[in-house]
């Protein structure tokens, strides 16, 4: 086997266009796994991934393929995460490849993520092989979509391969195209080792396992390695390739994709995007483009039962072993006691973590509404502080300037929804940047918008307003100063820190009104009347009242069925136990997420 017989490629696609299904077919076609071993969608291995239908982490697999030219090829497929929250991880994974299969659904055409991923692939200088999938469907329009590919992406329509990943139709043509069109890796065996970490996971026996693409040099299994960003060194416990299970090898050479079991204790020491070199024979420069990922979205996680605090801490630590993007620190709330302020890449990442904590660790959590990280310049001292939690914002007048993160957003939609999308974006303080008509009947709208405005309910609104047709992609656009204030919520006259939010001054009244109404509907009636108020500074701007409960009586005792009555009462008691006491008011967990249900209309 020579290095010219290696092909490293990935599959990029908008969600649901068939990336995982195609990967399965390729594995089958090359005999990498047999029909029997084929669980549905091998690469999406976490339960949650399967359920959400989105790949969360990258992974890799090595296939052997005997091409029509009679040669045997080694093909490394690197799977990329399928959600914009993980855009950086995608870009790193793409760097490990020389080619990309661009999958487009023959019934849907090109969408926002198709383009976003395509641009990343072009940035990484990849050979693009366009594939139109799902041609088995009656609604498929492979010719039209091929034309769209030609118009929008500039690849000749006749190069587009029509396939069905479901039936396996034309999969052979895809494999041949990979062999013929994806260039073999260029290699230099003699240079010092440079291997790109495109993913990693933590294994309790072997420590952090780095998924790597070796660009230059060679790694022997007995050589010490070094991380170039932080100079952490390690003696590998094992090195190997994915076939598709992890299979140890003696050496990994330039051009190859494989893994290094580092024995390191946290993924933080071996981050995605970093370059691994040899301790004794280090490279001069790392591979380009490394950046430590930064959390963008923050929320407080609190155990419902105070005594679960240490369990929550342990669970977060465990998840962090595998997730360099997750950060957390202890936080105390007057309302919710002890918990953690956690940082995530985006809302989707947050949901994933929350669900894993609840399912895999069986924790009952209260999550506060997500917020972003603000930069604040204090009034008198000029001191700069950073705020992850709305409750921490100093009172109006005590700071000179507050800045919030903005995003560049692209929304891809049929043009009949132009007005709907514009409306939504403007209501959320978005600024129109430009538009393009890449294909007849389609428009790409470009906006800048504060991140805080899109983490809450924006995507759902966009989807429902465009009957599911619009798609969206975003990237960071730096911080900008804004006229922001803290909106405080008082329940029964006492401020509840966990419900505070930071809003634009012009929207404070409106949001306050919505928030107190939402809370009024979420807080059950108590033995006494409960006023709910929203305030900025010390000024109450809106209020609502949860009336005192008047009646709560069990009906007929049916034929002496006392047990049933007792069970109902016990259930009622249990329900109450899951509530949080704020002073003497019982507040259900959902109330802390009430902000999420604020409507704009």
């Amino acid at each position: 086997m020579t290095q010219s017989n290696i092909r490293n490629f990935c599959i990029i696609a908008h969600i649901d266009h068939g990336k995982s299904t195609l990967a399965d077919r390729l594995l089958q076609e090359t005999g990498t796994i047999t029909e029997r071993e084929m669980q549905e969608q091998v690469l999406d291995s976490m339960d949650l991934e399967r359920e959400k239908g989105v790949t969360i982490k990258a992974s890799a697999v090595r296939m052997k393929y005997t091409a029509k030219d009679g040669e045997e090829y080694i093909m490394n497929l690197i799977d990329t995460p399928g959600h914009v929250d993980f855009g950086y991880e995608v870009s790193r994974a793409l760097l490990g490849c020389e080619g990309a299969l661009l999958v487009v659904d023959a019934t849907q055409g090109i969408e926002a993520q198709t383009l976003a991923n395509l641009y990343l692939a072009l940035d990484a200088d990849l050979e693009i092989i366009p594939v139109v999938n799902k041609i088995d469907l009656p609604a498929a329009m492979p010719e039209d979509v091929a034309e769209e590919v030609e118009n929008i992406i500039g690849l000749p329509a006749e190069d587009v391969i029509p396939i069905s990943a479901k039936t396996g139709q034309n999969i052979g043509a895809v494999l041949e195209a990979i062999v013929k069109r994806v260039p073999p890796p260029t290699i230099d065996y003699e240079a010092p080792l440079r291997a790109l970490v495109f993913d990693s996971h933590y294994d309790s026996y072997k420590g952090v396992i780095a998924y790597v693409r070796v660009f230059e040099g060679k790694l022997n299994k007995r050589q010490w390695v070094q991380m170039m960003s932080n100079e952490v060194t390690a003696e590998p416990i094992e090195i190997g390739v994915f076939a598709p299970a992890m299979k140890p090898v003696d050496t990994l050479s330039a051009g190859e994709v494989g893994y290094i079991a580092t024995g390191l204790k946290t993924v933080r020491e071996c981050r995605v995007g970093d370059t691994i070199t040899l301790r004794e024979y280090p490279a001069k420069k790392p591979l380009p483009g490394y950046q430590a990922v930064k959390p963008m979205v923050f929320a407080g996680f609190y155990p419902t039962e105070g005594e679960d605090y240490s369990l929550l801490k342990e669970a977060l630590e465990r998840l962090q072993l595998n997730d360099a993007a997750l950060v957390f620190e202890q936080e105390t709330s007057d309302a919710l006691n002890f918990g953690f302020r956690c940082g995530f890449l985006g809302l989707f990442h947050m949901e994933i973590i929350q669900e894993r904590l609840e399912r895999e660790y069986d924790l009952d959590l209260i999550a506060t509404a997500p917020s972003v990280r603000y930069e604040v310049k204090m009034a008198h001292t000029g001191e700069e502080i950073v705020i992850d939690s709305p409750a921490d914002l100093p009172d109006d007048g005590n700071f000179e300037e507050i800045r919030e993160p903005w995003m560049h957003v692209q929304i891809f939609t049929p043009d009949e929804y132009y007005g709907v999308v514009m409306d939504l974006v403007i209501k959320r303080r978005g600024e129109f940047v430009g538009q393009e008509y890449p294909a007849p009947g389609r428009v790409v709208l470009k906006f800048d918008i504060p991140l805080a405005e899109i983490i809450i309910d924006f995507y759902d609104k966009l989807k429902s307003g465009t009957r599911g047709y619009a798609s969206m992609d975003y990237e960071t656009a730096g911080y900008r100063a804004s006229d922001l204030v803290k909106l405080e919520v008082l329940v029964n006259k006492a401020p509840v820190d966990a419900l505070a939010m930071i809003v634009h001054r012009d929207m404070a009244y409106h949001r306050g009104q919505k928030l107190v109404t939402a809370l009024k509907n979420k807080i059950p009636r108590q033995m006494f009347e409960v006023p709910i108020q929203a305030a900025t500074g010390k000024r109450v701007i809106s209020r609502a009242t949860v009336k005192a409960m008047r009646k709560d009586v069990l009906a007929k005792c049916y034929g002496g069925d006392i047990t049933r009555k007792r069970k109902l009462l016990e259930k009622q008691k249990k329900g109450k136990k899951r509530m949080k006491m704020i002073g003497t008011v019982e507040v259900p967990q959902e109330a802390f997420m009430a902000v999420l249900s604020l409507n704009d209309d």
Partner: protein
Amino acid sequence: MIETSLSLYLHIPFCKHRCAYCDFNTYTSLLDLREVYADALVAEMAQVAGDARRPVHTIFFGGGTPSLMSPAALGRILDGVRTHFALAPDAEVTMEANPGTVDLEYLTAVSQTGINRLSFGVQSVVPSELALLEREHDFATVVEAVQMARQVGLDNFNLDLIYGVPGQTLASWAQSVRTVLDLDPTHLSLYCLTIEPGTPMQRWLLNGRIQPPDPDLAADQYELACTLLAEHGYDHYEISNWAKPGRECEHNLTYWRNGAYLGLGAGAHGHAAGVRYQIVKQPRVYLRRLQESSAPGYPLSTAVAASHPVNRTEAISDTMMTQLRLLNEGLDLAAFQAQFGQSVAEIYNGTLDQLVDWGLVGVENGRLHLTQKGWFLSNQVFYRFMLDEA
């Protein structure tokens, strides 16, 4: 607890039509089983009672629709009771009856079996409300049924009404209450409608055909009824029950005093000899199970579906939630301490203070009772008295 005398609950699981809100154990397609079912009830008594002939002071035929049973069948059942138990000569023997199912001849025959009290499911006098509930009678039928009952000497009777019905107003409720008061019953039961899972009514609620009842309106309705019935000399002796002096339902008092009662018939519940149990629900299964030999012994028959001994925790919770339903009587604090070796205050220290503070319970003459505010919010009191299992 010493079991002086028992109450018997006899379940009759047959109806002609299922009412829209009903989730009771009743069947509309098994009417043919009525006669064999009556004999099965007697067979079950034989299994349960053995040769002991325990004293019985109340009997209650509940349903379902007991008035669908023939007088002969009712007679056989009551003869069975007299054989297997020592039935007190002045025992209260109640039968639930649907107004549309009785005539003079039937009631005459019924009164001769020993049944001496009736309970009519009136529910409402307003045609649109009766239609929504899918009750099969109108109010004129009720008036006739009541007259006939008096004619045959059955003048001790209860009338059931339901409030909190979708579409019902305070005015229409007042009309129902006033109209039934004209019939001068000895006893009234007023229930708030609960929309149970699986009933047609719940479906209508989910698909928007009806609006959910307003809890504040229900509170107003209850309050209004309390006033009207007090004006007419009825004693509000239990959360949902009112009686003319001396006409309380003895059978229900057994439940509220957490006393001993046997449940006989499909789906019946019992509480005796420190055990709570339930009989299998399906009448056909019930009949088959009674064929089996080797009954487990008192108070269980071969048709028992589930049973468990009542431990101290459960007994305390049960005592609190039943005894407090009796508004005048309340809970005798000294008796409680004597029975459980600990006082209510010891067991529920913080809870009790909180409830007193909220004005939901009070103590008078050594008895804990619900306050007037507490009548409306009794669940809020009771659930706080539920003890966690150790």
